[in-house]
């Protein structure tokens, strides 16, 4: 801890004021607003709010549609996280070579981070286009099956997962690369002297050493796929076909903004808040662990 060197009665308050005001007005106040609103439901004519207690929650948890969107969210999040981490670890191992021009290669891997999920989605929407897209065309040559995202929910989900994985690849690779390069070569050489082949070296030595980074990226990608992919769903499938790609965040928006069911939407926000708190705590447990190492 630093020795505090300046003395002033009011200056520190003035300095934290902007951040505190923004935090109170746009974070705390709305969060409490959600908690309160979740206890009300909209009257049949939509003109006033009626106190409903915990009705919104019990109804949500008993609603097939809501549970479906929770399942969709988990399928999406695990697809993005496991698919993305597997692919990027593989690519990072490949890219982690002592060769010239590594900086250029790294940039060539990193740039998709700059693409908005929604824009990435629009690009993949065309690649998956049932009539003109390259992917259904190639797949049709391989075998005849229905690869039309407008008709098949799983194709639509696969399309969103692919777009999200593509967008996150560079980011994940950057962290895996940093991790791989911090592994001392002496450790690998020792394993080599012991006669471990490259595959064994990877699973017995490299992978365990990478586990803090893998865990960190796991949490980060979960947060990303739960909370930062609204634009992807909104711009690409709008939750369809049917409700096949309606994830929790999209449903909360849709019920509140489009269908004006304020109470239900607020209750969904509160449930999401619990999810973020869980993920954040997980992230900080890891951070603490790293400090003790």
């Amino acid at each position, binding site marked *: 801890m630093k020795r505090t060197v300046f003395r002033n009665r009011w200056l520190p308050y003035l300095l934290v004021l902007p951040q505190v005001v923004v935090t109170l007005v746009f974070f705390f106040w709305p969060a409490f*607003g959600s908690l309160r609103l979740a206890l009300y439901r909209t009257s049949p004519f939509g003109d006033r709010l009626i106190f409903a207690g915990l009705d919104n929650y019990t109804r949500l948890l008993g609603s097939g549609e809501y549970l479906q969107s929770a399942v969709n969210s988990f399928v999406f999040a695990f697809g993005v996280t496991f698919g993305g981490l597997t692919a990027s670890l593989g690519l990072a191992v490949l890219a982690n070579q002592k060769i010239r021009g590594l900086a250029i290669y790294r940039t060539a891997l990193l740039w998709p981070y700059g693409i908005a999920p929604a824009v990435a989605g629009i690009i993949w929407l065309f690649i998956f286009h049932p009539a003109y897209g390259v992917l259904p065309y190639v797949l049709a040559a391989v075998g005849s099956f229905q690869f039309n995202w407008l008709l098949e929910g799983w194709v639509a989900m696969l399309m969103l997962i692919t777009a999200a994985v593509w967008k996150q690849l560079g980011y994940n690779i950057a962290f895996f690369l940093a991790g791989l390069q911090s592994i001392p070569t002496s450790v690998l050489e020792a394993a080599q002297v012991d006669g471990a082949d490259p595959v064994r070296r990877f699973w017995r030595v490299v992978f365990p050493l990478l586990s803090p980074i893998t865990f960190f990226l796991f949490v980060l990608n979960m947060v990303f796929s739960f909370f930062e992919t609204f634009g992807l769903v909104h711009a690409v499938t709008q939750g369809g076909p049917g409700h096949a790609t309606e994830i929790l965040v999209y449903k909360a928006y849709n019920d509140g903004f489009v269908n004006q069911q304020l109470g239900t939407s607020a209750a969904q926000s509160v449930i999401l808040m619990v999810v973020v708190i869980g993920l954040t705590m997980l992230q900080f447990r890891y951070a603490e662990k790293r400090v003790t190492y």
Partner: protein
Amino acid sequence: MLVHAGLIAVIALIAFPLYYAFVISTQSLGEVTSVPPRLTPSWHVGENYAAAWVKGKLGRLLVNSLVMAVGIAVGKIAISILSAFAIVYFNFRGKQVVFWMIFVTLMLPVPVRIMSTYEVISTLGWIDSYWGLTVPLMASATATFLFRQFYQTVPDSLAEAAQLDGAGPLRFLWSFLLPLSGTNIAALFVILFIYGWNEYLWPLMVTNSEEMRTVVIGIEKLVPRGGGEIPEWNVIMAAAMMALLPPVAVILFMQRWFVKGLIESEK
């Protein structure tokens, strides 16, 4: 040699979707809908990009995105520098409360306060305004913690020397600390610019008129829903290319800071 070939194959795989989008943006509608798909660029660049520019009102939307991205980045950096400075260099009553308050914002992303934030913004009369697009997103726990962490590594002797020179706290911040924070500021700016440019749910909520939309939302409006119209994929892809170019260019040109920012801001 083999390693290079492997890397290049990986890069080509990652770049393919972008290449494909670019190719589509250069073709006529007839070429776009031809089967088998054509994977080589054509000559309709000018007309497609012009059509996207006019149809999507991209000039205005790009300006809005720029204002939002730069506004959020500059605002977040400014208020984070101030609050981190207060937290590190002063002892004051309620410091712990302030610290925890900033920390808790990590757990309150936009989706968990959709409806009530909208209410706050409309009460303030900030719907459809640049204020509404930028100010509410300016609090950032990550940026504050980053500056706090950095200030803690600055030796105490520097502040003591400044005091001996008769410099007050603000003078010290301005003439000593800020010049040292250059790379941190640049790194954060890149990350926050990209975040602001790509934000989707927020501008969708707080804007109603077409004039105030940002470019990532504008593209969605070009994709027709339901049967009626034939989607002009070449025009949509031209718009997508223009929407993704600024943030990607920032990564390419500010590569060093981008990598630093990526790693620092997630610590």
